[in-house]
């Protein structure tokens, strides 16, 4: 066996150096190109071209292939999902006094632990050494190292049983072996960057000992600044003197030094924009307008937060981009729908299907959705037989609801008995591929949406498979459908999925290596705290513990601490600066949605390196410059926006109906009857009347749901109940029916609150009903329930011939009064009563008035009072309020002379009635501003709500308050 050569290069990062290293290496036709960072590989392939005889492989692949050549066992590498699942399993066995015990269930802890173990491995510390080190450590560190060793061993064992290895195992396997060199494995080029990993360096030395010619390229600074310390440490470890390579420009020469010497020119621009969205838009415009858009790139440090903005801006400006981003798995509706279907199957409430009905995959029409919703409620009412009823119904409607049959079939099978997790996996696959489910029919479709779903499907299955495979080799068990649904939710909720991207366009990435050979790089988000990031210590092994471990290992390379990690921020910035060959644009947003920002200190450093502020270009885009001026606009969206900004101001739309066609349509037929509350609302706000009663629009909002409780006493026929138990039973039933209708639109907590609120209201209603019967005892036998206007004791024709319609909850006689029983929300306090309140009450009083008998209204509300509204005290009976019982008598008469008072009141009612009817019949719909705007739900339609209208100042309300 001959000894190979180790050649070390230090190169300024960037595509120019990379090109020359690769060209140099390509001089001989055989060999392998690899890199410590996988992100380097695409650029290598691009530069070498498809015809190159050189092979480009990941470092892990190279090591594994060498191990195979050595004749050793080299199992496939474990994926991170395997490792996470194995780790989650391994920490379950921690003892309660372990320093890791309290965090053992947290995914973030698993991730941190996995990172630390991998780091220890790459530093050459395996489980045996951890135990060895523990013996010399202080008690807490000793405990940590012992636990880490145990976890490490447990993970390795699980992975072994899964038929998987870890990368460090392969390296160690090589180091313990001897290899017969043959063919193209006799030369390798390793792009080592500057990430220190002593075990890999050991491997490189081993490889050279096996006769391989090893060329290693490390990153370097163009002059003497003390960055890329990891590279220096590795070169020291190799003990080889490096050669240097790479082009220099003024920025790269001077950055992080105390000099600003001139060198090759590079254009550096500093750009500020108002906010992150504007920053992204200007970056895209700049990149797309460059001479060679294909040779530009956008670098963003914090891709996760910027990616949606970049995608949104690129879409609006129609600029193609290539950007790989990840999103939480359950943001994909295919995944959500699958989970919902499983949860529905596992639930004991068929109504939970409601969450699925609106899905666009099903394409159910509105009437169909309603029909199914009703059916689900009907089935639910069957309690024990709910599933069977639904199955029967679905079978009868197979043609239109084949998907439902499929879900129910699967449920029947799945709920049959406990299955092992691998069996569940099979069932899930069966479910996901059932062609009766519209969302499962992915195979024959194209497009990005389907690609998204396909990836989501793969990821759902992969995540589950990782977990199941670990479970299978550790503690296989049977699980119920409920347990499986919970497992799916837990695993999928913490998973993410990559979103497909276009194949052409400006490259956006958070790793400068991914850009390849580009001329111009735009660096987004140059903010304090972002670049450089703040320093922080590893939660698993503190800096002090790392120093202690390094001390115990004496001559071995020292473990990285938070300071050395913080130093790498400069390395990264340097790489970014080196990525753009001829132009670098740094940008930052002046403010985000929380506060004003401070530009990154590195910008000042770049300015200094270039010889001062005057040597770099700056551009500040004003906030109001939302699109380039005039001729500069290359993009249609910009041109349209610019024209709109510079064009004349448009007035808001008219707030009245202008055509006879519309007026006729909204006008009820002549002689139509009205319910009292319609007239009340029409008087209060014609627009409210239009939307509520002519368009029948209801808004699914919380206030509306609370309001729906108001009708419970009437629907429970409270008046007719002879005893409290009966009444309570009826009210509870009415409440449940009401809640049942709301099920699909209401979250659990609100349902609980509505139920609790309803029950408390029921208690109050019952108490007041009882007290009212005692205090305001009605004439025996006079109570009639559900009396339509025009029925017994009532009139339905009002002054002016206006007809009333509707049904009173009841009517009774109390001394000389005819009493209308109603459940409503009208204000009965004469001090703050409005004309509309008076109209509403007056219409009821008129309806029950008959010669010799005054009208009265007994009105129950959802407030804390029941009111008996009268117009002047009738001498025939003494009526008393009782605050303790929540009963109050309200006399609307405001003048001492009773007949005068009645006249005044009814004159006002007649006038209001006339106005209301006239408004309706003339098709007038312009909204009236007022207190009702605070609760009216239709402001977005009327567009002149007191709080936020657009016809004049949206601040009207506050101005009045002020």
């Amino acid at each position, binding site marked *: 066996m001959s000894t190979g050569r180790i050649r070390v290069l230090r190169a300024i990062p960037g595509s120019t150096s990379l090109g020359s290293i690769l060209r140099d290496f390509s001089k001989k036709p055989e060999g392998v190109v690899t890199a410590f960072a996988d992100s380097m590989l695409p650029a290598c392939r691009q530069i070498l071209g498809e015809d190159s005889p050189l092979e480009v492989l990941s470092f892990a692949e190279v090591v594994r292939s060498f191990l195979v050549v050595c004749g050793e066992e080299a199992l496939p590498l474990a994926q991170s999902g395997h490792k996470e699942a194995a780790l989650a399993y391994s920490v379950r066995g921690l003892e309660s006094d372990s320093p890791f015990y309290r965090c053992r269930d947290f995914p973030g802890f698993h991730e941190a632990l996995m990172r630390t173990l991998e780091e220890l491995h790459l530093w050459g510390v395996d489980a045996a050494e951890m135990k060895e080190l523990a013996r010399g450590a202080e008690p807490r560190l000793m405990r940590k190292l012992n636990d880490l060793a145990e976890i490490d061993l447990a993970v390795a064992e699980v992975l072994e049983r899964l038929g998987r290895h870890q990368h460090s195992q392969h390296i160690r396997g090589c180091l313990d072996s001897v290899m017969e060199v043959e063919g193209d494995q006799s030369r390798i080029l390793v792009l080592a960057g500057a990430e220190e990993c002593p075990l890999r360096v050991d491997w490189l030395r081993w490889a050279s000992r096996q006769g391989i010619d090893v060329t290693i390229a490390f990153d370097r600074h163009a002059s003497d600044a003390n960055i890329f310390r990891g590279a220096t440490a590795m070169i020291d470890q190799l003990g080889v003197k490096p050669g240097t390579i790479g082009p220099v420009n003024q920025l790269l020469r001077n950055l992080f030094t105390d000099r600003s010497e001139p060198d090759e020119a590079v254009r550096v621009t500093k750009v500020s924009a108002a906010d992150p969205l504007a920053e992204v838009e200007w970056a895209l415009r700049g990149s797309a307008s460059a001479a060679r858009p294909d040779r530009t790139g956008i670098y963003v440090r914090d891709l996760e937060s910027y990616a949606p903005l970049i995608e949104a801006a690129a879409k*609006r400006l129609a600029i193609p981009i290539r950007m790989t981003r990840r999103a939480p798995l359950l943001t994909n509706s295919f995944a959500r729908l699958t989970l919902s279907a499983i949860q529905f199957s596992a639930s004991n409430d068929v109504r939970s299907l409601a969450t699925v009905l609106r899905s666009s995959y099903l394409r159910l*029409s509105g*009437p169909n959705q309603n029909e199914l919703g009703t059916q689900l409620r009907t089935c639910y009412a069957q309690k024990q037989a709910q599933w069977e009823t639904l199955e029967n119904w679905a079978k009868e409607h197979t043609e239109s609801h084949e998907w439902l049959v499929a879900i129910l079939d699967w449920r029947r099978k799945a709920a049959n008995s406990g299955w092992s997790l691998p069996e569940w996996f099979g069932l899930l696959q069966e479910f996901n591929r059932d062609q009766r489910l519209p969302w499962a029919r992915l195979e024959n479709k194209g497009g990005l949406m389907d690609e998204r779903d396909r990836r989501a499907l793969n990821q759902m299955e992969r995540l589950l498979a990782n977990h199941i495979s670990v479970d299978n080799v550790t503690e296989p068990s049977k699980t119920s459908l409920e347990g499986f649904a919970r497992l799916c939710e837990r695993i999928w909720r913490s998973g993410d999925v990559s979103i497909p991207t276009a194949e052409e366009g400006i490259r956006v990435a958070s790793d400068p290596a991914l850009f390849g050979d580009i001329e111009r790089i735009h660096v987004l988000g140059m903010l304090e705290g972002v670049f450089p990031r703040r320093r922080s210590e590893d939660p698993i092994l503190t800096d002090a513990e790392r120093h202690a471990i390094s001390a115990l290992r004496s001559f071995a390379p020292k473990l990285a601490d938070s300071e050395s990690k913080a130093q790498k921020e400069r390395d990264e910035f340097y790489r970014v600066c080196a990525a753009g060959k001829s132009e670098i644009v740094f940008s930052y947003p002046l403010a985000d949605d929380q506060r004003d*920002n401070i530009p990154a200190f590195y910008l000042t450093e770049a300015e200094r390196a270039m010889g001062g502020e005057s040597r770099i270009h700056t551009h500040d885009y004003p*906030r109001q410059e939302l699109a380039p001026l005039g001729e500069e606009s290359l993009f249609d*969206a910009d041109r349209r926006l610019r024209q709109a900004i510079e064009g004349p101001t448009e007035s808001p739309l008219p707030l009245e109906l202008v055509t006879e066609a519309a007026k006729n349509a909204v006008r009820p037929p002549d002689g139509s009857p009205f319910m009292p509350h319609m007239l009340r609302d029409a008087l209060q706000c014609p627009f409210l009347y239009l939307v509520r009663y002519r368009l029948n629009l209801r808004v699914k909002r919380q206030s509306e749901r609370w309001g729906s409780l108001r009708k419970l006493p009437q629907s429970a026929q409270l008046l007719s109940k002879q005893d409290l138990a009966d009444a309570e039973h009826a009210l509870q039933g009415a409440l449940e029916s009401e809640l049942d209708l709301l099920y699909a639109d209401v979250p659990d907590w609100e349902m609980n609150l509505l139920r609790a609120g309803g029950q408390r209201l029921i208690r109050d209603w019952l108490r007041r009903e009882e007290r009212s019967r005692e205090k305001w005892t009605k004439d025996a036998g006079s109570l009639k329930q559900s009396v339509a206007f025009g029925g017994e004791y009532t009139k339905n024709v009002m002054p002016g011939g206006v007809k009333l319609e509707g049904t009173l909850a009841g009517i009774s006689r109390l001394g000389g009064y005819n009493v209308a029983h109603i459940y409503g929300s009208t204000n009965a306090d004469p001090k703050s009563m409005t004309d509309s309140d008076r109209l509403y009450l007056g219409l009821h009083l008129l309806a029950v008035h008959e010669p010799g008998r005054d009208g009265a209204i007994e009105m129950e509300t959802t407030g804390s009072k029941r009111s008996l509204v009268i117009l002047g005290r009738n001498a025939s009976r003494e009526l008393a309020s009782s605050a303790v019982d929540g009963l109050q008598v309200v006399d609307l008469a405001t003048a001492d002379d009773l007949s005068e008072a009645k006249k005044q009141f009814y004159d006002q009612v007649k006038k209001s009635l006339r106005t209301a009817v006239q408004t309706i019949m003339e098709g007038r719909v312009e909204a009236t501003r007022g207190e009702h705007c605070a609760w009216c739900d239709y402001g977005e339609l009327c567009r002149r709500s007191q709080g936020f209208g657009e016809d004049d100042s949206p601040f009207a309300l506050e*101005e009045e308050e002020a």
Partner: protein
Amino acid sequence: MSSDSKTQIPTAEQRQVIEAPEPNFTVIASAGAGKTFVLVERYLRHVEEELLQPDQILTITFTKKAAAEMKKRIVQRLRQKGLMEQAQIAETGPIQTIHSFCERLLRENSLEAGLDPQFEIMAEDRSARLVTNCVREVLASPFDDEPEAEALIRFLAGKRQGFGDNKSPYGILESAVETVLRELRGSKFDYTAVVDRFSNPTVLRQTWEQVMRDCLPERARSVFDELDVPDLRQRAQQACKEASVSVPGWARGKGDADGEYEGALHACGLVHLACEAWWRLDREMDRLQELDFSSLEIRANRLLLNSQVTRERIRGQYLVIMVDESQDVNPIQYSLLDNLGCERVMMVGDAQQSIYAFRQADVELFRSRAVSGTTKRLLKNWRSVPGILNFVDAVFSGLWGQEYAPMQTNTGPMDFDLDDDRSYEGVEIWRQPAKSPTSTAGYIRELIDEGVEKGDIAILVRDGAGALAMKKVLDEAEIANRITGGSERFYTRLEVRDLANVLRATADPYDDFALLATLRSPMVGLSLDSIALLGMESFVIERLGDFEPPVEGDGLKLRSFLEWYLPLNQIADRLSAWEVLAEIYACSDYLPALARRAKGDQMLANARKLLTLATEEPELGPLEYSDRIREIQDLRHKEGDAPADDNDADLVKILTIHKAKGLEWPVVVLPQTDKALTSRARDVVVEPNLGMVATKFGKGQGIMHKLLTDMKKARNEAEERRVLYVALTRAQRRLCICIVPPSNATTASKLIDGFVDPAQMPGIRVRSTYAPQPRPV
């Protein structure tokens, strides 16, 4: 003060702070005294002369912006001094806000804290929603075992007139419970202590007795102890009478033992509900591994108290702590800083500028530290012209007496900056009728006509309503202006509501209201006639295809809407909310349509802001995000409008005094001086320093409610005076104060007017639109 520290030479009083030999001391720094400069220079001294590394100096600031600014200056100064290694360490080092420090502490010590190292920090709106949900869950629970809570619910549920207007019957309870929860969580009392003292009315009464006793004149206390009178008010009165001291205001009036019992019952019930919500909140945050800012502080403090390992680690980590704005530190933060156990602590602050009591800041903590330990002073104000300083000194020497530290004092044998003639040049008094922003606008117009740049003027208002009133009159006077941070009603803006509807309409085309609202909005802009005709039948979506609009132009609008809407609603529920918004902005004419409206710039800015906000919640689909917007509207979360122009634009800025803290402008205008400094009594009063809660839901006011309300009023008034001080010290060259005719209430106007005498104040300028009453002799 110049930020160019390189060229600045410290004054004598600055030097005595920078070079202070004491390890542990407090610096009282008046407004504009250059404390950032001093902090930076002392930091440098630690590094340069004591050879500390920047990561051994923990620097705490009040805001992220201040932290970033401080770090920038420190790094620059270190580099100027050639300390390159140290500069590099400082770049990523511990110069941060207290919350950021707590976060780092908990992440790095997550094993000890029992937290996921990747726990999330909750945004304020999310935290508010979680609190509300916990409170609502509590209110939905049965309280059969807790009669006080059940009694309160039964007493209050449905009380609010608002339920008649379709609101929840729990409105009044929800806000009461949230108030108690918020105030007590920020106090020094932990959950158990609160639960214990409110366990039942009898126990609570004992605590009340103790609190009342401590508030009585000293001579009456022992008498109070000995009296056996069931009614607390009578007992207090009798104790005072027997001790021959006057009865304090809070103890006057007629006794009502039953009312007191009811008050105690309600207070217990309310605190039970709040504690139950507190417990649920903690549990929910644990489950989610998400912490709000309060929780961050509490957890970090608890970690330091309970974990010796962490304490030792921290003591090894930080050798010096520097705290800026320490007058605004709350009791938990104070305890946390103490528990860090560092021996070298410099706290810089100014009790006169403590204006964050509503965030539980407790100025007394700073005061007592200043009194008990070594204290240094930075009094000389470098921000304002001498005339303004003379004026502010005159007003506050009068208001605060000996406690006030004048900013215009001669600290050495000779100070050439001192204006011995006491000119008041730079101060303007604008006399005007009460509540007249129009007059203020008139005076501002005069300023501009005199040559003052609009961009140099800041109007400092007390609250959002004042800002809106000023904006309106400036708009009318055609003076370009902007409310900094907006009106904080972002989520109720029509354009935001429109977008909520369009999100819903794309994901659920059968939601008729959402679809009609979309059609009515500038997104489509159909006439009301078309809307009415379309709305006559359900479902609107099914009528759109063959609908023939009665108004010309609607047909075209509808067709171009359907072009993008129909394909989008086929897939909208498969996209995140932000993706749907992005599609809409890309495919529809919405943004140009907004731009064509009056105030289009603001609408555009808000529409763009909503997209940005939506990208921060990628897990929400269009329906969920639409619901979220509604929910936030209901919670009345304060979210500022998106700024529609630049900071340096030539506009008059309108902002609240709180937002102005730490900033300065050439010209400052102070309107809205007619507001009473004390607030009205509320149904629920919480005194976090005492851990006490009292209620007044019934008719009479219990003695405890009266006592706590009086305490609160006194604290509020003291705080308002400090707010006034902050406002008056923001001006560099000209300070313009609106003065209105005096009223019965104590107002800023009344306070200032009491010290204004143009005859005795040379250089002061008075503008007047009415003749003031002659000053009483």
